[in-house]
């Protein structure tokens, strides 16, 4: 198992390098000019100097290697300096600078990360917690009313895109319900809101309900289907009959024997879904005006902010590769029948 993990870990390096090259080239092909937003009074030779200082005139390969160095060597060192107060001599090196805000890209990402993690993380947790019991009960009572209802809910979760479900809940809870009512919910997620006392906590809770529920619906749809299928596979196995035959309580049979074995594929699906949630959250963040990573990406794309787009998409790619790896390793750890070596 250990050698397998090591081998997979080494294999991720060329994968990530290739993906970074693809993303870098695609974004670099854009016609956007970093000096395009500057005042027209700047003379052409100064413009050229600015371009040179940003390194846009160099050959593509040089730019790529420079970017790699900044991303994998400079930024981690700066991160270490900030977190431990060391001095690693990074002060006079050029960081990845956003064209739009002229501040380091990593600082922008660090500013936006908590909002995304908070909303998406809670949604993922809520979605999983709702999905597991639904999946278990619908498998145990296959073809019952509850199962049919569960199928319908997950079909709706698959089919209703977040830009409609989000707008729909805004119509219901923010527009149709009067704003002095107890059930009224704010349609815009206020990220400057700070939780200091009970009242502000209540407000934070209320403003999180809608984005979290919209995201959770999709997560629930996927995971509950998987749990159900996996439980159904296991419920017909011989060991379940044996467990019943030796007189175990039904609760023990289902919740200990069957559930444990059914969780193996479900856990990997949960791990695989985490990075795609960051991508899916782009739309939800846009609907509820959460200024997280997704919104940063949209603004950067619209503004032709090449470094920010490159870095953000690459971070999304790292997340995907990383969680694929985690899912593979988890699968091997949880299921002794599937050991890759």
């Amino acid at each position, binding site marked *: 198992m250990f050698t397998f993990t090591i081998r997979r870990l080494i294999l991720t390096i060329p*994968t990530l390098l*290739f*993906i970074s090259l*693809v*993303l870098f080239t*695609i*974004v670099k*092909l*854009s*016609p956007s000019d970093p000096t395009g937003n500057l005042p027209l009074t700047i003379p052409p030779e100064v413009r050229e100097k600015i371009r040179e200082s940003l390194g846009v005139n160099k050959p593509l390969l040089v730019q790529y290697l420079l970017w790699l160095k900044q991303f994998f060597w400079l930024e981690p060192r700066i991160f270490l300096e900030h977190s431990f107060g060391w001095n690693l001599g990074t002060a006079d090196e050029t960081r990845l600078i956003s064209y739009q805000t002229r501040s380091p890209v990593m600082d922008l990402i660090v500013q936006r990360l908590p909002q995304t993690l908070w909303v998406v993380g809670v949604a993922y947790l809520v979605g999983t917690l709702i999905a597991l019991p639904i999946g278990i009960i619908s498998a145990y009572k296959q073809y019952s009313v509850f199962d049919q209802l569960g199928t319908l809910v997950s*079909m*709706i979760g*698959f*089919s*209703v*895109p977040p*830009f*409609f479900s989000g*707008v*729909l809940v*805004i*119509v219901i809870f923010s*527009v*149709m319900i009067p704003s002095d009512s107890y059930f009224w919910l704010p349609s815009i997620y206020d990220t400057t809101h700070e939780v200091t006392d009970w009242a502000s906590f209540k407000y934070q809770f209320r403003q999180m309900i809608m984005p979290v529920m919209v995201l959770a619906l999709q997560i629930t749809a996927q995971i509950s289907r998987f749990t159900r299928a996996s439980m159904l596979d296991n419920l017909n196995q011989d060991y379940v009959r044996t467990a019943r035959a030796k007189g175990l309580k039904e609760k023990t049979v289902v919740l200990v024997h069957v559930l444990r074995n059914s969780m193996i594929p479900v856990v990997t699906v949960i791990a695989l879904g985490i*990075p795609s949630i*960051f*991508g*899916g959250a*782009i*739309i939800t963040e*846009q609907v509820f005006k959460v200024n997280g990573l997704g919104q940063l*990406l*949209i603004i950067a*794309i*619209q503004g*032709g902010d090449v470094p920010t*787009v490159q870095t*953000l*998409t690459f971070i*999304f*790619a790292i*997340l*995907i*590769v990383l969680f*694929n790896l985690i899912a593979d390793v988890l699968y091997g750890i949880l299921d002794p029948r599937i050991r890759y070596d």
Partner: protein
Amino acid sequence: MTDIPQIAAQPRNQWWDVWDQFKTHKGALIGAIFFLVILLGVIFGPWLWGIDATFIDIRSRNQGPSFAHPMGTDQLGRDSFARMMAGGRVSLAVGLTAMALAIGLGTLIGVIAGYFKRLDGLLMRTTDLFLALPLLPLLLVIIMLFRDKLNAAFGPEGGIFILMVSAIGATSWMQTARIVRGDVLAIKEREFVLAARSIGTPNRRMITRHILPNVLSPIMVSATLGIANAIITESALSFLGLGFPPDFPTWGRLLFDSVDYLQQYPERVMWPGLAISLTVLSVNYMGDGLRDALDPKIRGR
């Protein structure tokens, strides 16, 4: 003399069996009928409905539903019903074409990878690489970058249509390729393939006559699910403001435009939203029923 029992049942085409099984799945049948109605509605509707989707009647703007305008009118007095049909045309056209592209690409790569052992490793690693790409951000970037160039070449509508279809198609073939490869690998080991090879069937005919018909069912199922995926992706891109130009309606674009009037006319977001959701729901149910109907193990029961 003993009676020789007549063989009563005529030999049937297997597609009749598939249809019989499909009919028993209520959700799938309703989904298929609904999808057909929507499809016919958006193809023939604009001809039958007298009002043009771009006709501006500023005096009757922001009206609610009435007999003249069953879904009301928008802020410029354009008939929402006509715009919904025109939008559905584009949305479904994008969905179907992108699906066809993705399925074609996925089947090609899957069959080649499964059939030719030498190319298997390379093609499957490529598939894995594509699966590791962050798709929605990548789509946004691609559309942003190439929109202007293609618009200049093919006009604003044609350019974005080509871009949208090829971008969605090029980023959603991977699942199909994986499924098809797995099936081809299994079929390749069967006796009939060996028999066909022993009489000297060349590779090309082997694939078209023996392999492809046997992997048709997973391809059909992923095709239905591919339509749903493509419609949602197109609407999502339009919703983020990176889709078709504003005067060119699609369901996603109509939803995006209606969000500005959420306070005053909340019913306006309902029409495109419901159209997208119900179409995707019906396609998903159709795929579910098709999966059962095409599986010979389930069919006999």
